């Protein structure tokens, strides 16, 4: 559920939380207290999936997504679930990024600005895998947690992750890989098991960490790697995939 909700200062009688500022972490906070690390007075706040059109000086805009590690029920009575992802404050005529934390379950929880969806340390149980057609393409998980995507004949082949992620609020797809040869990284729609074209793509060759601009996407999408065929059997090794705000 996406909606706009506004409030002034630190809270309201019907609300199940408060928004506080300051550069020092609050002492003895209530459950769901949101601390925005800022030295500017917070004059008001808004939960919204879109940038406020006419912000006032000091307003904090809390980007409300469709999932969050600090989601909570915003009201004391009826439930309105909110999904904070990031915070910005209107200062000097511009929205400025601010870090934020939520007090939940007796501890401060940092708002994650990125999601690591593949790394050697991430537990991929739960169906994380690549769609593969078998011969002449294969996806193999290596002992170090990386994935090798292999293509034995032409033309190129689009691998997509079986899992999908809500890209709302994320602006960068970051992929670390090695041994690429004019392969493409990007995103595809989540609605089909096999697609012929990525919705956004970047061509890469060699090894490194590459960023794709995914700021125009909302909703569920899969990560895609279009494995090029360069005349002989060849694999690209994927070591990390992240979604970054």
């Amino acid at each position: 559920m996406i909606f706009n909700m506004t409030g002034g200062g630190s809270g309201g009688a019907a609300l199940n939380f408060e928004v506080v500022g300051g550069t020092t972490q609050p002492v003895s906070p209530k459950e769901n207290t949101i601390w925005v690390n800022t030295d500017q007075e917070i004059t008001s706040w808004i939960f919204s999936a879109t940038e406020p059109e006419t912000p006032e000086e000091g307003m904090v805009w809390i980007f409300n997504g469709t999932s969050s590690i600090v989601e909570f029920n915003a009201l004391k009575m009826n439930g309105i679930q909110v999904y904070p992802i990031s915070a910005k404050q209107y200062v000097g005529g511009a929205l400025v990024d601010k870090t934020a934390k939520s007090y939940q379950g007796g501890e401060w929880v940092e708002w994650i600005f990125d999601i690591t969806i593949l790394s050697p340390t991430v537990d991929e149980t739960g169906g994380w895998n690549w769609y593969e057609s078998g011969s002449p393409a294969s996806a193999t998980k290596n002992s170090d947690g990386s994935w090798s995507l292999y293509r034995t004949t032409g033309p190129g082949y689009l691998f997509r992750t079986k899992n999908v992620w809500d890209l709302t609020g994320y602006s960068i797809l970051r992929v670390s890989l090695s041994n690429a040869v004019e392969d493409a990284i990007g995103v595809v729609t989540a609605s089909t098991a096999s697609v012929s074209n990525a919705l956004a793509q970047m061509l890469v060759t060699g090894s490194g960490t590459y960023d794709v601009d995914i700021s125009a996407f909302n909703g569920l999408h899969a990560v895609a790697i279009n494995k090029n065929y360069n005349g002989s059997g060849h694999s690209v090794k994927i070591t990390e995939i992240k979604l970054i705000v």
Partner: protein
Amino acid sequence: MGKIYIDSECKCHTTNPDGSFREVTLSEKAQAFFTNKCKTFIEGHRYCPEGESYTREDGKVFYGECAVPWKPYDELDAAQREYERQLLKEYEAALSKIEAALEV
């Protein structure tokens, strides 16, 4: 399509009325990306050639070669689907005329 116009932010344009855009040759993969796409879809994307970069409005720099939307993708997708629906109507109308002419 083998070529496209891009501006200083790598945003795509299908025409160059005042000559202020740069004409670039699309790579084979980029051609596949943009072929059979309507004007709205194309002009809602950026194309950054290999070896170049663009700076997004928030200051983040991205490097080519890449083809990515800069307008909300949902809008571009809706425009492309409508374009394809109109094409289909035209094809069906043309087919009907042919059938009528052949009296089949």
